[in-house]
Every structure is written in C-alpha cells, then in structure tokens.
C-alpha cells in the first residue's frame, strides 16, 4: 500500500513531467558513468537556483507548484529524492521556457551544467536500480472487450454490452484495471446479457415470428433526407426483405436511382421512373442476414438539375424472417455443439465434449476438473427439471458467462515476492486484449499452452499475424478513438445555425477517414511519423467536397494523395479539428492543448485553482479573436502555460470549428503564424507540422507512452522509464515502423513480467 500511495502523488501532480523529460534524460545515458559529483551540487547547482529560480519558486510563492528554495538547505542525495521536480526543472530549462521572458537569461554553459548534473545523477540511480515491471490489477472486461469476446467465443454479435453502464476512464483510456469497477447494476446487466446471449446462441426451437419493422425517417430525426440509415436488430439468422419508400407528391415521369445498403455494402441499385402515385418503394428481397444488429441504409439519387420539390426517403422497412435458418446450420450452434449432432440427437457424453472446449476458450486457459463438474451438474439439474439437453447446455453457458474467470482477466501470484515472467497463457490474453480487444483465438491459445508463445520469434510472427487480422480494427477504434479523442465526436453538436453542413453523415465520414488512415498505418506498416504528416488520406465524395478535393465521386472511401499544403496527418483531419473546438467557434487553446496532450504527451498543468479557464466564448466580435487571446497572455501567470498552448492552436486557425479550410474569420483575415517558447516560428499549419515532425523523437515517445499505457491497462510509473526508453530507441532504429512499436511493447519488461506481490497470497 505504501507503494501505491507514492504513485498516486506522482500521478496526480504530473504524469506529464517525468515522461516528457525522460526523453532528455535518457538521451544522455552513457556507459561507464563518472563517479558521483555531489560537490557540483554545492558549487554550481545551488548558486544557480539561488540566482535564477528561488525568487519565484520558494515556499511562499511556490509558482507553478514548485518550491526549489528547500533544496538550498539539503544535501545532494536528499534533494535528488524529489525526482519529479528536478525533471520539471530540466525540462523547463532545456525548452528555454524558464527563466520566463523578461528575466535575465543565465549563460548557456551554466544551464548545461545544471541539466547535466541532474541527468547524470538520475542515470546513475537508474542503472543501479532493479527493473520493476509493475503489477496490473485484475481487469474486468470493458464494454468493447465484452462485445468482442462474445462475438469471438460464440459467433453471436449482439453487442449486448452497449447497454452496460459507461466504463470509467483513467489515464485517458477506459481499459485501466484499477479504475474499472463493478456495481450491482452492472452485475444485473451481466446476468441479463448472459441470458440474452445464451438464448441467441442456443435457440429454444420455437420458430421466430415474422416481423415487419418500419422506421419513419421523421421519427429518427432524419426528415426530408435523400439518405436515411437505421440500425436494426435481426432476431435470428434467416432471410429478410429490405425495403425503402420515398415521399413526394405526384411527379409523373420523374426519374431517380434508389439504393439500399446493408452494413455499408450496396445490396440494391434500381433505376426508377415514377408513373403513378402508387410507385413508392424499392426493395431487396430475401437477403440472408445473421442475427444481431446491422446497419441498413436507403438513398435516392436525383438529377441535380431538378429544381422543384424533391422527393426524399420516407421510411425503411424490414420484413422477416421469411425463411429461418435451421438452428443446426447457424454459426453459434456449430461452434457450441462440438459433438456434431443435430438438436435432439445428443447422447450423454456430449455434455462434456461440448462444455470442456467452451469453458476452456471462455476462461482463456485449461479448465479444472472441478470447474467442468460444476458445469455438468447444471446440465443434469436442467434435465432433472424436465428441460431438454440443449436447455441444460444453455444454462451451463450462462454460468460460464457469469464466471469471474470469464469476466475478469486475472494473473496468478506465484509464491515469493520476486518479479517474474507471466505465464504463456497470461501473455496470450495480454496480447489479444491489446491488439484485438478480445479473447485469444485458437492458434494463439494453443501456442501458449505448448509454452511456445514467449519464444521471441514465435511472438513476433503472432504479432504480425494479429495486426494483419481484421480484428486489429479494435486497436484503431479503442486505442485510436481515445488517444486522438475522436470518440467524443459522437456526442458533439456543432451549432446547426453556424455549421448547417454538419450532419450525422459528415460526422460518420470524419470518423471513418481517421480510422481508415490509422488502419492504413497498421496494415501497410508505415512510419508512425505519418500520423503527423502522411501525405495521403481516405475520403468519399461528401468528405472530398467538404475538403475541396476534386475528382472523387460516390459514397465509398478511397485513398487520395495530398500535397500537405492544406491537409496531411491527423492534426489537420476534420475529426480532430472538430473535437478540439467549441460548438460555435474554434479554440486555439483547446487545439493547442490537444497537440500538447496527444502529440507530445506534455499536457499543460491545469489552470491554478479558482482561476477560470480563459473564456473564449465571451470574446466579442469587435476585435479579432487572436488579439483578444494575446492580451491575456500579458498576464505572466497565464503566460507560462498559454505561451505553449496558444501558438500551436493559432497554427490551426485556417480550419473552422468543423475543420473546413478558411482564410478569413468573419471580417478578419486569418493569421496562422506563431512563435513557440523555444523561439521557433512558423506561419500556417504546414510549417507548424514541419516543426512537430522535426522533433519526431518527442512524438515517438508520446505515442509509445500512450500505447504502452493502453497495452498494459495501467498508468505508467517512474519505474517504467527504462522500458519506454528502450522501446523508443528500437522504434527509431527501425524506421519508425508501427509494427516495431508494437513488437517492442510486447517484448518489454512491463508487458512480459509482473512484480511480485508485496505480500504474497493475500493481505
């Protein structure tokens, strides 16, 4: 508990500082370090602090939460125990942000003496320290993991976890073991979900009733549109008919094209000529559709020259199942009933044959005899009560889904308190939940149980296979969505008066672009620096028009090349620009903060207590936004952070609050120039990105820290520094390839090992 308390302080004061400064520290690690130099602390460092720092950073003022005064009365060893603050000192000195503008500048060699001393001393301490891999707390599946695991375990894609309470976030992600808690409401949802999933996987034999579901566009907030979409939950595998109808007064001779899509794929394209008022619909009959939610879309395309009243999609109708797939032919049945018999034809030995592999896969490890017996007794119990064998299996399946061995990823404690390698089966789960947000597949589990997975060449091949698998989309969706904060796109409402072009379709397009861009970096194994300035992206016609890119027609996304002037990399994608804006206007502060957090992982400290964040919304229209913002930076208290944030945001002022390119804001021309605290200047987004890219190291480190946090499901701690450092180094030595980043994380000490329990076996 001691250890945890300590971590907390560091996490709370600034996860930021040690991480950002580690870059500087470790670039400096040299073999065969010189003997300790405590005397330099007395002769150089203390005088420097005395002269340049303590007039603000003293006990009384404690500017920026930093009191350096106390070091003056301490020995070197005592002073060094406060690593967090020393690293902040190094970072600020190196970045040229301290002493602040207006104060006398110390000579460069004096600064170097101080920073060298700090770095050397900590490098020495680190070399002497034992590697510490840390411990990942028992981790309950989060919503995405639950959904994917059910999908892969049973081929049931109901997405039941969408109904679970929202998972709490910590360290920027919603897969942090420490933070994921469990409430009675969630447990109740688990029980409900287990029953729903088990009934879907093992139907009771009752034929599904035929259902006609009609979704009125108007009721779904999609009135008067040419394109309408709905997510419908199909009750069973079977054949269904999709139908859409348009609405318009009598338009004899009017021609248009009707289209229907299922899960984004076109299933019908039909040329339509209206002859009578009765011509109102088009349908795609008898489509084979699997159980679970699917997206259905309908659109009509009309001659753009038509100026009179236009028809629009009035409703989507789903009719079925007109033919239900026999249970034994559905994927879940075949997955579960491993004995190969049709319903009603099982023999007593089947129960074991079915439940052993099922529980084995669900628990992601071999099942114990006791566990299997417990499940078998549930089957017997059901049969004793007069229910069928299939119902018995269903009850056992429900029990599997309620088992803590399914709901939690738990790593065992070997005896002793030493750091140790996790087992191969534990490694398989870490790997699959990292790359797929799901359970290990059979190949991975098999390798693990043969104890071959930890072999570096086997591991490397598995990582490559897993990244190539479409399930790695989960990494894009869950890691990418949270790292880039584009998950928030879903809940944002840009002002419809100021941004009438923003609608749900454009929102989806923005998200799709960034996701496909990210996927491309994984699939093509590109340099991670492409996140900053990749000269290509993915657009469809709608998004291309929004961006002013010509020659793209149709709703499908395709790759286009970019010259980098207006767009390149994630920072200038509309998704990111929108989530870092207010609903009514842009915010250079939020955008600057977004870059500091996401691209550099050096978030500014929160504003001081009781000083409200700068209120950009309050700014009038009489002066330019920029002038107003610059005014507040004359206040030194604000300036120390805003001089880092605001210029970065100004560099993106060429994009409005939904990411559209602009050269004026109202009556004021856009000024997208800026100067960073380190003296570098730029004009416009392309030059800003060039500066960020020139510090590629900072970005690689930031991405490493973020991805390692996500991979481990815990916040990073000071003892993770050497691991971060070695991952960054290997990525940089291998052309900044994405696969190298993943490989190095998987090979790292914190991913492969676990610290011993402070108290083995319990409290």
């Amino acid at each position, binding site marked *: 508990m001691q250890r945890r308390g300590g971590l907390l302080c560091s996490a709370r004061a600034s996860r930021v500082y040690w991480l950002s400064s580690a870059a500087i520290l470790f670039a400096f690690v040299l073999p065969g370090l010189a003997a300790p130099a405590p005397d330099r602390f007395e002769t150089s460092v203390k005088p420097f602090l005395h002269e340049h720092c303590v007039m603000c950073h003293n006990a009384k003022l404690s500017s920026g939460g930093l009191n350096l005064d106390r070091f003056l009365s301490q020995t070197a060893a005592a002073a060094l125990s406060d690593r967090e603050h020393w690293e902040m000192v190094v970072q600020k000195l190196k970045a040229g942000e301290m002493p602040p503008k207006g104060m006398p500048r110390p000579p460069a060699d004096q600064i170097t003496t101080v920073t060298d001393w700090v770095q050397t001393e900590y490098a020495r301490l680190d070399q002497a320290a034992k590697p510490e891999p840390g411990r990942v707390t028992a981790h*309950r599946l989060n919503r995405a993991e639950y959904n994917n695991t059910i999908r892969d375990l049973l081929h049931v894609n109901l997405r039941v976890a969408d109904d679970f309470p929202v998972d709490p976030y910590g360290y920027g992600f919603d897969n942090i*073991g420490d933070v994921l808690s469990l409430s009675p409401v969630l447990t109740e949802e688990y029980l409900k979900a287990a029953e729903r999933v088990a009934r879907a996987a093992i139907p009771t034999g009752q034929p599904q009733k035929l259902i006609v579901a009609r979704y009125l566009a108007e009721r779904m907030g999609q009135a008067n549109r040419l394109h309408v979409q709905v997510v419908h939950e199909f009750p069973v595998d079977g054949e269904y008919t999709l139908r859409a109808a348009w609405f318009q007064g009598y338009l004899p001779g009017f021609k248009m094209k009707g289209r229907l899509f299922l899960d984004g794929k076109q299933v019908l394209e039909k040329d339509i000529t209206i002859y009578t008022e009765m011509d109102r619909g088009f349908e795609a009959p008898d489509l084979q559709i699997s159980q679970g939610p699917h997206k259905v879309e309908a659109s009509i395309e009309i001659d753009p020259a038509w100026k009179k009243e236009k028809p629009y999609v009035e409703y989507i109708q789903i009719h079925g199942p007109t033919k239900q797939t026999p249970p034994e032919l559905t994927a879940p049945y075949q997955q579960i009933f491993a004995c190969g018999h049709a319903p009603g034809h099982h023999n007593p030995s089947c129960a074991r044959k079915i439940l052993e592999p099922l529980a084995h896969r669900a628990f992601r490890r071999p099942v114990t005899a006791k566990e299997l017996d417990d499940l078998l007794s549930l089957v017997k119990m059901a049969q004793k009560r007069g229910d069928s064998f299939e119902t018995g299996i269903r009850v056992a399946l429900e029990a599997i889904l309620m088992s803590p061995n399914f709901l939690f990823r738990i790593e065992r404690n070997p005896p002793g308190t030493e750091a140790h390698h996790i087992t191969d089966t534990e490694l398989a789960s870490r790997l699959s939940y990292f790359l797929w947000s799901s359970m290990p597949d059979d190949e991975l589990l098999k390798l693990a149980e043969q104890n071959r997975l930890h072999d570096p060449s086997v591991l490397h091949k598995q990582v490559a296979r897993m990244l190539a698998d479409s399930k790695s989309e989960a990494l894009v969706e869950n890691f990418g969505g949270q790292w880039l904060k584009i998950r928030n796109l879903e809940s944002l409402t840009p002002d419809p008066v100021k941004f009438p072009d923003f609608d749900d379709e454009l929102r989806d397009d923005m998200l799709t672009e960034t996701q496909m861009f990210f996927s491309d970096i994984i699939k093509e194994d590109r340099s991670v620096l492409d996140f900053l300035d990749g000269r290509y992206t993915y657009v469809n016609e709608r998004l291309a028009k929004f961006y002013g890119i010509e020659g793209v027609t149709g709703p499908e996304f395709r790759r286009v090349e970019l010259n980098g002037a207006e767009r390149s990399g994630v920072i200038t994608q509309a998704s990111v620009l929108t989530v870092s804006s207010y609903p009514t206007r842009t915010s250079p502060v939020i955008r600057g903060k977004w870059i500091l957090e996401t691209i550099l992982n050096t978030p500014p400290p929160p504003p001081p207590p009781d000083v409200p964040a700068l209120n950009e919304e309050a700014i009038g229209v009489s002066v330019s936004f920029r002038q107003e913002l610059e005014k507040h930076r004359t206040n030194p208290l604000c300036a120390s952070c805003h001089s880092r944030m605001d210029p970065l945001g100004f560099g993106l002022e060429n994009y409005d609050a939904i990411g559209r390119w602009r050269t004026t804001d109202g009556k004021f021309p856009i000024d997208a120039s800026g100067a960073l605290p380190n003296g570098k200047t730029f004009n416009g987004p392309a030059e800003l990105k060039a500066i960020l890219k020139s510090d590629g190291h900072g970005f690689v480190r930031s991405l490493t820290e973020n991805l390692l946090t996500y991979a481990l499901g815990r916040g990073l701690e000071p003892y993770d520094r050497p691991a971060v450092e070695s991952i960054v180094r290997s990525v940089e030595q291998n052309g900044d390839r994405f696969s190298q980043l993943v490989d190095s994380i998987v090979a790292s000490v914190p991913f492969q090992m676990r610290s011993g329990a402070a108290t083995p076996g319990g409290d």
Partner: protein
Amino acid sequence: MKHLPRRTFLRGIGTAIALPLLDSMVPAFASKVQADSPCRLMFMYAPTGMMPNAWYPQTTGTDFEFPRIMKPLEKFRKDVLVLSGLGDKNGYALGDGSGDHARAAASYLTGTHPHKTEGADIRCNISADQFAAAELGKKTRFASLELTCEDSRQAGACDSYSCAYQSISWKSPTQPLPPEINPRLLFERLFGDLDLSGTPSQRANQAAYRKSILDLAYQDTQRLQGKLDATDKRKLDEYLTSIREIETRIAKAENDQQQVPVGLEKPAGIPPVFADHAHLMLDLLTIAFQTDMTRVSTFMLAREGGLRTYGEIGVPEAHHSISHHRRNPELIEKVTKIQCYHLEQFAYFVEKLKSTPDGDGSLLDHSVLVYGASMGDPNIHDHGKCPTLLAGNGKGGVKTGRHLRYDTQTPICNLYLSLLDIAGVPTEKFGDASAKLEIA
C-alpha cells in the same frame, strides 16, 4: 381483489407516459400496498452552478416572491421550502488545484473532499442517498435508482479527476454508482425484460437456474480470491457484494409477481430533446415510487461542467463554456435559460407526484425532493453558496411554504442530517455536518 384492466401508455420517443393510476391497479406490479405510506427521498442535481440573482428570493418567510428560475414552482408555493446560506466547502480546492466541477459532483451528497486521482485509488465517501438506501432499501426491490440525462462518456480525464467522480451517489468510499441514462434500460430494470410468455413451470425453472448460476459465480469468486493479493481481492469483492445484492433483488421480484402492465410499452431509446428525455425518466421514477419499488433516488440532470448544448431553447453553446460568463450579459442570459430549463424538469416531477394519489394523500406528501447545485455563480465556482430547495413535506417532517436563510456556508450536510431523520434513518454524524437544520 381482481385488478382493473388498464390502458396506460408509455409511447415511444418523446412522449410522456399517461398514467391514470388508481390505487387498485398498483398491486399487480408492486409489493404490498403500504397501509402506512413510506417516505421517499430524492435528490435532483443541477449541474454547473446557478446564477444567484435569478435564484435567491429577496425576502425570507412565507410571502417571498419567486425569482425567475424558480418561477415554475410558484403554483406549488405551499409545498416548497427554499434554503439559503448552505455551502459545500469540500468542493473547493483545499490545496488540490483545479477540478472544481469534478469535486462539485463528488462532494455534493458526501460532504467529503474527494481524493484527487485520475486513476488508481478512487476515494470519496458514502453519499446521503446511499446512507438512506442502505436501510430503506431492505424493504424494496431496488435499494435506490440513480438516473441521469447525460452520459459521462468522454475520452480523457474529467476535469483533472477520474470520470468516476462524476457520480453523486456513492455506495461506499470506493464505489461510485454509475447512473442510468437510457429510459429503455430503466424500463427493463423496473419491469423485467424477460419473455414472460412461458408457463409458470418454465419460469420457475429459469428462476432456479439463475439462483444456481449466481451461487456458482459466488463460489468461484471466493475460491479465486484466496490466491490473490489485496488489490485484486478488492476488485473481486465488488463482484461478490454485487452478486449478493442482486440475489436479494431477484428474490424480492419473484415475490412481487410483477408484470408489465397491459399497454405499457417499452420506450425505444433516448429521446434527443432534453425535456422529453427527462420527462420519460421521471415518469418511470414516479411509477417506481408509487409502487414502492424503491424509496430513494438521485437524478443528475446533466454532467457537472458538461458540454451539452440546448439548441431547443436557443442555446447552441456548450453549457460549461458559457457558464464562465465573465459578467457578459448575453452569456448570463443564456446560462440562466439553461438553469430555468433544468428547473422546469423538477417542477414537472413535483406536479406529477402531487397529482398521484398515495395512501391518505398524494405521493408528494409522502416525499422529500431536494433540488440543488453544488455551486452558486459558476463563473467563480462558488461552492460556498449551494442553491437549495425542497418540495414535499416528507409526511409532515418538513414545514414547507417558506424561505429560510442560514448563516453563510452552513454545511449542506446539516440538511442531510435532518432529511435522514425524516426518512427514518437517523444518524448523529454525516459528512461535515455540524448540527441538524431546523426545517420542521
């Protein structure tokens, strides 16, 4: 007695429930009618502060004029008690730096300064509603219902704290309760979502299976725990206590023989317009109170410091952004509009309870509803002035129809002490309370 057939409607999106509920309809989906109606307790939380000028009545006593925000409650003057001078000092930084909005939510009902963390080691304290629920919940199917109209999902931290601190209800110092946002899911919790078309013996079988499944999950969890360290054990403890709790709930539900009333339709989902959403949730809560499925509830109208926009009342800006109005009259007007809109939902609920008969009076007579915020002027995060009003006299425990003014920064927990008394769960200590408030 044969129950009346009824036509009650819970139509789809955007439609409130018309509930001509008569006493004799109740037993079909409730536990026994209480000869002596219980007292219900509900806290509705108004996020992101309140403009003092539009909130506080000028005068105290009985004849005060209802200020702009409270105006919709004027017609219930006799049922309302306005309290000025209460404060939530634990919302202040107290050395913890920024994060006033996160602290506002977490400290409001706990009277405790939340431990600042983004991740590991979340810690606050049991909240007043949960303190009551621990006792009152023994008699009802749901110990309490936590509701909201805005999801706390947002990538990143929530105001420099873990997003878990967005909860106002805390079951224990380490267990914040996530609120329900979806009317469909609330409906399913209240009325069950299982196919009730089966025969009684099929239903009995299913009940027996559930019991065995939960027993097995409990035993497996216990067995696992023996091999784990303290931190992992604590995580699994949450599962153990949750299993026990829902076992009890299921047992109670079975005794209730509850059924979905004929014609009561499941809501389709979350209505896009705020007021429609709030009405639907409050309609369901009314049923839950009326049928004694629960006696305790919290309702968070929206996220504290949240970014919801309210285009339908002419406020397309994000709530939090304009709440820092910097005395700009245009922004003050807009943020006040949101605050009026929020209170209208409370007034809707008051009206609903007042028109619902319960025992010898109305449901409102047998309830205490608290409407309040953890901040006054949001521009300065003024935790020292918590706007607070009560509706319903709690079976005579509250003397309504007045405006009382206390000394500045009287702990709001003093009020909770009095409310816990009225609810029949007396305690001498709660949060930072110094003494009971005299509200009778």
